[in-house]
């Protein structure tokens, strides 16, 4: 019955603007509101948490309680605008610009290694120009996904092949390795790890041969063992890595962070201590709390229910990502959506996992929640891509 009504409306030229907006195949109707809603909710929660974490940090906000709240809201605004822009352009349009975007992002990452680069919190991963600071590796995550997708999907979407051939896979891998290697030189190990997982997700979704997938995993594992065994790393670096499980290995450094993070989260209990009332947060016992350790604020002040809600919302985002990857008919869209899924999933798992003491500490922000401009822009652009993939998927006849 309803479909008949829509059918009629669709062909009625005198329909009003509202009706057009709400028509079955209208842009608004086809937007993934669940995905968008979950992301916006995460951003709102994140805003409150960032505010709570920075209110008292006078050495950061120079006495202005609202400074970070305001900056964070602006970041979200820019992020949402970038998302709208991405949807407006459409991922297919963007497909043609991929080589340019890829080149731009690689150039920006390379700039970090030049005197323009800046070190923030021990990570040399930033470009500072004027009052702005940019973390180009965040954009690289997107361009790696887009670039690989473009190469891998080209012949499949053209109907030439069922799966990408070895040559294409090798080209795609080469494309990913360049920005990864540059990022590694910074060094920004956390981002490299995320990129590696993205590559794995992209390869999986592209339908590349199992040999590639297994080979890639094996290379990663062997590489890790070799780094460990050949003594490339100093003992303190190994300790630092292992301190997430045993804080005593690095009690003054990472061990302190993980220990305080665990105390903050653990003391939150079921309902938390209430927003702005966490003693660990107001006492500034957890370092980097507005960025990498934002989840500890949620754990302490909002408790199991609040922190669990964040995980649940992230779960909804992933679920929508997977749905979009599966529902789209072109491989290009599938690969992009799967790459974004891998990115979000791993980064969220790594970020929350390190605050909970089950993952080693790496400087990665929690998507949508952590304070940080570039990261915020990148995840919203990714959402724009996802929405665009969903909107532009051909409606089944």
């Amino acid at each position, binding site marked *: 019955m309803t479909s008949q009504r829509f059918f009629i409306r669709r062909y009625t030229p005198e329909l009003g603007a509202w009706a057009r907006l709400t028509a079955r195949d209208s842009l608004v109707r086809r937007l993934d509101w669940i995905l968008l809603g979950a992301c916006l909710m995460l951003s709102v929660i994140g805003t409150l948490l960032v505010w709570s974490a920075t209110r008292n940090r006078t050495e950061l906000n120079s006495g202005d309680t609202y400074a970070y709240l305001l900056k964070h809201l602006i970041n979200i605004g820019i992020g949402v605008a970038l998302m709208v822009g991405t949807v407006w352009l459409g991922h297919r349009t963007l497909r043609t610009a991929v080589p340019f975007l890829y080149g731009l992002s690689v150039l920006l990452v390379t700039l970090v290694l030049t005197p323009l680069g800046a070190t923030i919190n021990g990570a040399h991963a930033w470009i500072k120009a004027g009052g702005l600071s940019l973390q180009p590796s965040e954009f690289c995550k997107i361009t790696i996904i887009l670039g690989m997708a473009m190469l891998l999907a080209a012949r499949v*979407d053209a109907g030439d092949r069922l799966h990408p051939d070895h040559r294409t896979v090798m080209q795609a891998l080469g494309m990913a390795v360049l920005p990864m290697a540059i990022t590694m030189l910074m060094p920004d190990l956390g981002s490299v790890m995320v990129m590696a997982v993205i590559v794995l997700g992209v390869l*999986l979704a592209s*339908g590349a041969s199992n040999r590639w997938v297994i080979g890639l995993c094996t290379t990663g594992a062997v590489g890790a063992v070799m780094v460990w065994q050949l003594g490339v790393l100093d003992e303190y670096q190994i300790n630092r890595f292992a301190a997430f499980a045993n804080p005593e290995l690095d009690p003054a450094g990472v061990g302190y962070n993980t220990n305080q993070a665990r*105390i903050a*989260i*653990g003391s*939150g209990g079921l309902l938390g201590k209430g927003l702005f009332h966490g003693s660990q947060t107001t*006492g500034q016992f957890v370092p980097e709390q507005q960025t990498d350790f934002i989840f500890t604020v949620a754990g302490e002040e909002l408790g199991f229910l609040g922190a*669990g809600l964040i995980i649940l919302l992230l779960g909804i985002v992933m679920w929508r990502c997977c749905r979009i990857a599966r529902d789209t008919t072109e491989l290009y869209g599938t690969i992009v959506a799967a790459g974004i899924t891998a990115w979000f999933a791993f980064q969220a798992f790594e970020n929350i996992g390190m605050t909970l003491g*089950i993952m080693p500490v790496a400087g990665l922000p929690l998507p949508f929640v952590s304070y940080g401009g570039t990261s915020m822009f990148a995840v919203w652009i990714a959402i724009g891509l996802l929405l665009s993939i969903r909107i532009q998927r051909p409606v089944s006849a």
Partner: protein
Amino acid sequence: MSNIPETGRSSRVTIRLVAIQVLVFSLLATLGGRLWYLQIRNGDEYSAEAAGNHVQQVVQPAVRGSILDARGVPLADNETRLVVSASRTELMKMKDDGEAVLARLAEVLDMTPEEVAEKVRLCDSKTPQPCWNGSPYQPIPVTDEATTQQALQIRERAEEFPGITAEPTAVRRYPAPDKARTSQVLGYLSPVTDEEIKKAENSRSPLLRSDQIGRSGLERAYDDALRGKAGVTRYEVDKLGRVMGEQRNDKSEAGSSVITSIDSRVQAVAEKELEKAMKEARKQMDRNTNRLYEADAGAVVVMEAKTGRVVAMASNPDYDPNAWVGGISGKDYARMTDKKSNYPLLNRAIQGQAAPGSIFKVVSTAAALQAGYDFDGRYNCGSSYSIGNQVFKNFESQNHGPISLGRALEVSCDTVFYALGHEQWRKDGGLTPHKDAKNWFYRTAHQFGLGAETGIDLPNEVTGRVPDRKWKKDFWKANKDNWCKIAKKWPEKKDYVTQLSRENCLEGMKLHAFDSVNYSIGQGDTLVTPIQMAAIYGAISNGGTLYNPTVGKAIVSPDGKRVERIEPKSHAKLPISKANLAKMDKALEGVATRGTAAWRFGGWPQDKIAMHAKTGTAEVYGKQTTSWFATYTKDYAIVMTISQGGTGSGASGPAVRNIYNALYGVGGKGGINKKKALLYKPQDELPKIGKDGTIESPEPPKKPVKVGRRSE
């Protein structure tokens, strides 16, 4: 799924997408599980850790209660000193970490900036003393001897001295009224140790790092009551130690005061007389050793006979308890604990033990009566008593012929008791005791409370020793290895020690005839403390009740509303019938009137105040004789001893007589002036306690230091 793609979406891709989805959700589930584990399962543990993270305590010490004498005169109280302290938390907030402020402070206090800096720096493994060992959140005392002038300078220019306070603070003081130091009875305080803090953690009155704790004497025995409860303010602090708010504030509660039965005037007389007697003894020639008497230590106890309350207790050598206030200096401590000073920290009235000599004969007499001998029977007091080829001489080889037990006490006839002791030893089976051996002489000593603590309310009392068959056996077991080792040199080496060791090695487990003979007159291995003998002579005076001696009389809460009296408590009755006790009492009166102590009580108003006495001169191997003098009236018992001091009446007699003179107001010719009497009758009532809790003292304490502007 129903959507069959137009282009070639392969099933491989679909399967892999499902795999990705499963992987993603299992990761999220892992996070959820871990979150539950931390927050719900172990939440309490982390809450406790978080709470410990951000709370710092600041302690306001409680004012320690006073120790007062029976009339309310303070023996230990607190004086107000001006303490200048620096708050580290305040100083650290300044740009130069408070350096400028400390420099200004040093100038005001006439100290060098280095001295001040050393006082306020925190102790750690690399910092040598002096440094601050307490909590960094606690105001750190820079000096406790600031003048009023200096305190005013600091207070009036508060803006120049942020974080610096000059407060009148209570500091312990031992005012020594009438020059009565009462050193060992009062004891002393010293800072609490880590173990003590740990031990008291879960008790009713937990200790704080800044606490001083009673280490000996009354300060230790009544520490719980005296200490009160320190106030604790808990501040919430952030990671950098900045105070964010006040969490809880427990007000400090002042400690209770302890009223003792000590009379500072009597105490002063006792201390003075003891000192005098010892000095006098050191001028006397010892005919046995041909040296002057050493008189190296002594003690005297003045006790209420009917209650066991201690009116005075002196031990010599003594010390000034004020040396401990504000931390004892290393020099003072070394002096107090080295051998040359003969350990002035010991309270010899309860911790000094020696053979009692003839003052033990009251125990032997009671033992003989229990064994069935008649008090008025006839016992030969010959000049000596022989067992085999061993001859035991009477004192100065006197010969009194057959006399009663009473007369034997009066003239202190050794041979009578030798015979009784030896006879009982034989009856018990001699070297091989019967199963039902009565051991009357030893049993009676135990019944008199010897070989056990009297239960006085002072710490570390010693038990003395009754050298009975069991002790002999135990002592032999403990020492036989050593004895037998020395004995191996026999017969090449034939000195006294080797010979004695040989005898002990072979026969030391047995109670020998000569043991029982020596024991019967309180010689040999017998050890008693002055307080034990005071309790016994007090019991003879009061009709046979052995009291636990007490120094504390009442505990008064700081507001004066709660007064908890410490009632006299008895722990035994003397095993002697009323009739026999009366006879013994008569005999001991005879000692004072016509016996061995008579020459010391010439002109004593015996008809008004019946004096009883027993002298004792105990021999110690390798040392000069110990002087003992045990006396009592119907109200008081006084026991005095001087180590290496000579005879009982000779060395201790005049001192004891003078103490009685002072107590009863007896003049040189035996007249009694009750107005001059310090304590004609024991004082049972407590001093007056005012409505505000102040305890009235007949002697007003010295004026405390006053600050011009007191913030009250």
